């Protein structure tokens, strides 16, 4: 006994292993915001990180411009065609919006699941080790950002806010295999106009596809249909694009359908993001 306690090296090793295990499990099971020390250190790093992200963005933009010039002509042709269709859709949309508002007033609904506000942000850095796909953005609790808000980039939803500091916050991408934060309640509006609900809760890395599960077998889903968020999960509004249906199969028990989704936005090339703040409160907290 005495000999054991006199072995200083062993004691140090034991104590440090216990210490590391303790903070590891504590931070892994943390719910709510990060401790004060962590928030401060994150912010200090993020502020200096901004200096570094500027040249990175500049380099990326330069190469992208060169890339874009190469196929400008074909893109231009395609866009011209698309714009013509867009005019019609826009006119239709404004009529529908107007009608929607009038109808809402008549039945006395102020806010629905589809109403939200946008906050834009820039990506400062990305977690270098790819195990936990997280990016750090330059907006924090000072610009009303809260944990759990949905984040968009390009054409669709890319993830959720998982940690907020005063002037920076972390976004976990949907391509992370983290069962704690990474479930999005989604829906597919089928060709017959039926709404099919499900949960996007997994990601298949080799094929780069999201997986949506818990879908009833009674409704038939077609390949190519759009998957959008349903707003039933709590903090996400309804109507954010997640991706398009690529493959449909039954789950391992044969009781529900499983849909493989091609993501609407590229998870590898993210520079600017839009954080979505739902107007209607979930009444969770």
């Amino acid at each position, binding site marked *: 006994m005495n000999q054991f306690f006199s072995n200083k090296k062993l004691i140090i090793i034991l104590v440090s292993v216990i210490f590391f295990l303790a903070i590891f499990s504590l931070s892994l099971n943390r719910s709510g915001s990060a401790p004060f020390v962590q928030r401060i250190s994150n912010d200090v790093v993020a502020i200096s990180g901004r200096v570094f992200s500027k040249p990175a963005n500049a380099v990326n933009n330069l190469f992208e411009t060169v890339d874009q010039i190469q196929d400008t002509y074909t893109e231009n042709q395609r866009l011209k065609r698309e714009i013509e269709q867009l005019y019609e859709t826009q006119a239709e949309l404004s009529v529908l919006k107007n009608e929607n508002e009038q109808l809402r007033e008549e039945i006395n609904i102020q806010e629905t699941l589809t109403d939200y506000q946008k906050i834009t942000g820039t990506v400062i850095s990305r977690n270098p080790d*790819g195990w936990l796909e997280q990016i750090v953005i330059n907006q924090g609790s000072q610009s009303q950002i809260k944990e759990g808000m949905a984040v968009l980039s390009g054409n669709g939803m890319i993830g959720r806010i998982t940690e907020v500091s005063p002037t920076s916050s972390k976004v976990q991408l949907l391509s992370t295999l983290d069962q704690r934060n990474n479930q999005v309640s989604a829906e597919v509006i089928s060709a017959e106009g039926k709404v099919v609900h499900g949960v996007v809760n997994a990601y298949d890395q080799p094929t780069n596809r999201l997986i949506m599960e818990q879908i009833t077998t009674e409704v038939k889903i077609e390949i190519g249909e759009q998957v959008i968020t349903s707003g039933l999960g709590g903090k996400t509004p309804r109507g954010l694009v997640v991706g398009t249906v690529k493959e449909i199969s039954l789950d391992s028990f044969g009781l529900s359908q499983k849909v493989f989704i091609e993501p609407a936005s590229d998870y590898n090339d993210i520079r600017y993001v839009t954080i979505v703040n739902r107007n209607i409160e979930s009444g969770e907290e």
Partner: protein
Amino acid sequence: MKSKTSPFILPSLILFGLLLTDGFLSIVIKSFFPDDLKMMVPRMMLMGLIFFSFHLDFKKLIMLTFLIGFVYDSYYSGILGIYMFFLVLLVNMVFHFKNFFNRNFWTIGLFQILFITVFEFMVYGIYYMIDFTSFTLIDFLAIRLGYTLLLNVMMFPTIYFPLNHLMKKTVNSK
């Protein structure tokens, strides 16, 4: 007074810079090589740490590693403890192995390859244990380890020569 403080503050500033470099390099690399089957992980900070374990004394080194590990964990992943623990462990190993070798470009370079591999295995192991990755060992070796080593071996000279120059200068001024 100056000679007492500078060997600690300068390395910590450099490591902090390398940590941020890792973050922005990963944005650039991801957008240039969007292939999901080739994962390249920049490990500038780790290479810097391995370099400094040849030059600093033990106590300062461990303190520095602990601090930088905390910042890395807190800033990038939010799960404290993984990098903190493994970096301290790794630097310990390097510190005890280094006496058997000469200090030159080639030996330090081989140390980098060896210990980046060890480190990648350790981090993969822990994420596999807590179920955050679907990678099998084969996936890990084929998709990740090879490309990571390739990238870091290419970047090693850009770290080694400036740091070596700097270290020589500080030792001389002392």
